[in-house]
């Protein structure tokens, strides 16, 4: 990169807010998806929107690609600097600017960790609903970019349903505010259009979010089944009974095996072929009965064990198994990749059988732990990164899984986004006209395509090399999950 640019960046931000050293830059060569890597030329750490705007204007002047990055936990390569350039790291813009208890809103900077919002709001009996599995480390700015989900989105909606107003720096470097604290779109819904645009429309520098009152009561239970069909039927029956669970999570035998052999041991029955973690919340009155109705549905579908958490500790333990699943996979294989796809929930049984078959065909183990209530699959593919042919197989298998999900009426991603990982799969879902229209909207926001290039739209250019500083290594992942789930005093889910 032109050294002039680096020195100008240093002038704008100060030397300590610009990283151009090749070794230090290695940390930014990939995000939470290490299957792809490329080193940016420089990383900057702005303090505020004005800093971001100045960097963006400089990038435009020199025609250098640039992209925002939060905590780097994204799983689709959204923060991958495909063409190098400037990474605008927003993690240090991490202040909660205000919590308006009366209006149940919070104004936050993009680098605030998702869970920290709920923790800050907790004394007022409020919380922020979307809870991606990475909520203890992912940033709210990244959540906005990806329209992140999480287990409780089944009842409470995705990120997009909770964002009221945003301040953004446009691709040209202007600072503008969109939306309003009432969350009422006026004219076109530009906030709704930008949320989920994966950092290709604008860089979000301030976010007004909706907070919800904590439910009066929560009931969490685990139901164990001997067949996937009975388990899936239970999911359908709960939904058709008119119950809106707060979460409805599926855990398969392989996951249970890993979890029960790990520090996240939650007492999941080891002989279960599949289990459901079900949570209902709301007013205390009536919740017992709703939970009872679910237990009844489980039993009718031949659940051989149904355990209802009797207190907060038992509840936390049930969730620990689910949340720690990713960290427990080291028991089964040295490396893993988390996939993401979504299908109509009624197609669950056949899709799980088909994925099982693929697992055999490719000789790669697959563990399934996912959001069953909304049909959002997360096959965890287990492999050994020392064998390059296994890595190749993962790409092929990922493609097969995508094709399968699209064939049954599903889609490529339920919550991780398309990013770099899945851009070449987009034609499976969208035809040329669909993509051309999306591209047209992108050009309105980002006409030069300098902002986060090479994302979402197919280009058929791969760079399959595993990045060093994020990892597929299950031991590494285990260490991180452990630090997050067990190391912190706050084991709060909401």
């Amino acid at each position, binding site marked *: 990169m032109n050294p002039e640019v680096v020195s100008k960046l240093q002038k704008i931000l100060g030397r300590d807010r610009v990283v151009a050293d090749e070794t230090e830059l290695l940390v930014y060569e990939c995000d939470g998806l290490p299957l792809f890597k490329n080193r940016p030329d420089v990383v900057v750490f702005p303090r505020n929107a004005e800093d971001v705007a100045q960097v963006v204007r400089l990038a435009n002047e020199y025609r250098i690609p640039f992209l925002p990055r939060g905590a780097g936990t994204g799983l689709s390569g959204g923060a991958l600097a495909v063409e190098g350039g400037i990474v605008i790291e927003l993690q240090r813009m991490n202040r909660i600017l205000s919590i308006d*208890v*009366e*209006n149940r*809103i919070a104004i936050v900077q993009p680098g605030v960790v998702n869970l920290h919002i709920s923790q800050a709001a907790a004394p007022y009996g409020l919380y922020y609903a979307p809870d991606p599995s990475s909520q203890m480390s992912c940033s709210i700015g990244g959540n906005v970019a*990806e*329209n992140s*989900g999480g287990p409780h989105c089944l009842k409470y*909606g*995705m990120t*997009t*349903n909770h964002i009221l107003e945003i301040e953004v720096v446009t691709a040209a470097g202007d600072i*503008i505010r*969109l939306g*309003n*604290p*009432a969350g*009422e779109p*006026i*004219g*076109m*819904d*530009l906030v*709704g*259009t930008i949320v*989920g*645009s994966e950092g290709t429309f604008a860089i979000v520098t301030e976010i007004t979010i909706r907070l919800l*009152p904590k439910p009066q009561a929560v009931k969490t239970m685990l139901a164990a089944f001997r067949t996937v069909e009975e388990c899936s039927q239970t999911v359908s029956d709960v*939904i*058709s009974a*008119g*119950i*809106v669970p707060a979460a409805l999570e599926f855990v398969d035998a392989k996951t249970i095996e890993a979890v029960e052999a790990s520090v996240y041991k939650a007492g999941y029955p080891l002989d279960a072929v599949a289990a459901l973690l079900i949570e209902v919340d709301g*007013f*205390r*009155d*009536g919740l017992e*009965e709703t939970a009872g109705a679910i237990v009844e549905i489980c039993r009718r579908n031949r659940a051989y064990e149904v355990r209802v958490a009797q207190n907060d500790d038992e509840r936390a333990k049930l969730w620990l198994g689910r949340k720690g699943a990713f960290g427990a996979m080291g028991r089964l294989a040295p490396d893993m990749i988390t996939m993401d796809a*979504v*299908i*109509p929930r*009624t197609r669950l049984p056949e899709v799980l059988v088909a994925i099982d078959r693929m697992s055999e065909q490719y000789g790669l183990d697959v563990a399934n732990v996912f959001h069953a209530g909304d*049909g*959002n699959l997360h096959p965890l593919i287990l492999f050994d990164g020392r064998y390059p042919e296994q890595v190749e197989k993962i790409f092929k298998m990922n493609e097969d899984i995508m094709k399968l999900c699209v064939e049954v*009426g599903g*889609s*490529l*991603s*339920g919550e*991780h986004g*398309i990013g770099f990982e899945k851009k070449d799969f987009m034609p499976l*879902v*969208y*035809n040329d*006209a*669909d993509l051309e*229209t999306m591209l047209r909207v992108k*050009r*309105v*926001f980002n006409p030069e395509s300098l902002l986060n290039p090479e994302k*979402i739209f197919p280009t058929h250019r791969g760079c399959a090399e595993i990045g060093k500083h994020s990892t597929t290594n299950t031991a590494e992942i285990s260490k991180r999950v452990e630090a997050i789930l067990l190391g912190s005093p706050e084991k709060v889910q909401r």
Partner: protein
Amino acid sequence: MTIDGILPARTVRPQSIEELAELMASERGAILPVGAGTQTFFGNPLRLADCAVDLTSLSRITEYVPADLTIHVEAGVTLAQLQRALLENNQFLPLDPWNGPAATVGGIAAVNAQGPYRAAGTIRDWIIGMKVVEIDGRISKTGGRVVKNVTGYDLQKLYTGSLGTLVIIAEISLKLRAKFARTATAVARFGDVETAAAAVATVRKGALQPVSCVWTGPENEVWLRFGEDPRAVDWQLKNLPPLADWTVLEGADEAAAWERLRDRFNDFAPIVTRAVGLPSAVHEIIKEYRPQAWMAHALNGIVLMQFASPAEIGRMRQKYRAVIERAPVEVRREIPTFGLNDAEYELMKRMKDAFDPEGRLNPGRHIDGERVAQR
């Protein structure tokens, strides 16, 4: 049908999305998409209409999978038709736009029309995908058919509320929910604005979770509708704000009461504005602008107000966002409907130009009529 004093030279009524696409491909004039025509009063004044496209024949429910909680409907399906189909499976959508159940789903989406269920969201929150026809006749889709999806851009959000000025919405996929096991509505009349405001504040800060919370004036009634589990509804009815005489309505009485409220709102004239502020500002908005009558979605910071003259709109916009909900065309010729700031205006204008460079889709109604000088 005459809109803003303009009678379209022709009206066409496509029988299928493909036919609509062919029509669009061959049409060279200004196009006016119309559904049931229940909210043609909304928006900046229509400037030109060579061809009205009546979408009411696109009235098929193309697929409904109750077990997946999804339905896919053509744009001309009415809300009444949709809810009827859903009720057969004990499902529904908490949508009750003020313009009533005769409105088409496409029209409700085009306007992002809302009603007392505002506290539970708008149609924006239920749309999971769309098929649209563009100005050149091209059919494109956005979103998908599953309840959770982040594949590609969320253009259904962009099209919702764009008033048929970017594309014509042809088919909509919606996620659904189970019908509330029970609903009940509590209504109380208060002596003055202050006591009504206090009751609303109690609700806003407290444990109740009404799916509707409407504060009407000048009679100062507060309407709270509860839905969900029967016992949860009971608990909420037992914990209504104190110092008021609440009447609880259920069943047919409840439905009829909400219909009467809708009629009351639809009688607001000649000028209705939608002020938007923080929920805690609702009281202040009512006090400061002294509308003749109002309906506030009090938990959302939205106040629909009736005025005799447009004088207050400008004053209101100095402090709050305010949209003209309904006004004679003469008023809308003078005052822009949305009251956008420059940044919003520029971005929306660029969006319009990208989709419809010749300005042939519903000319004048939305962003292209927002700056009076450009009319």
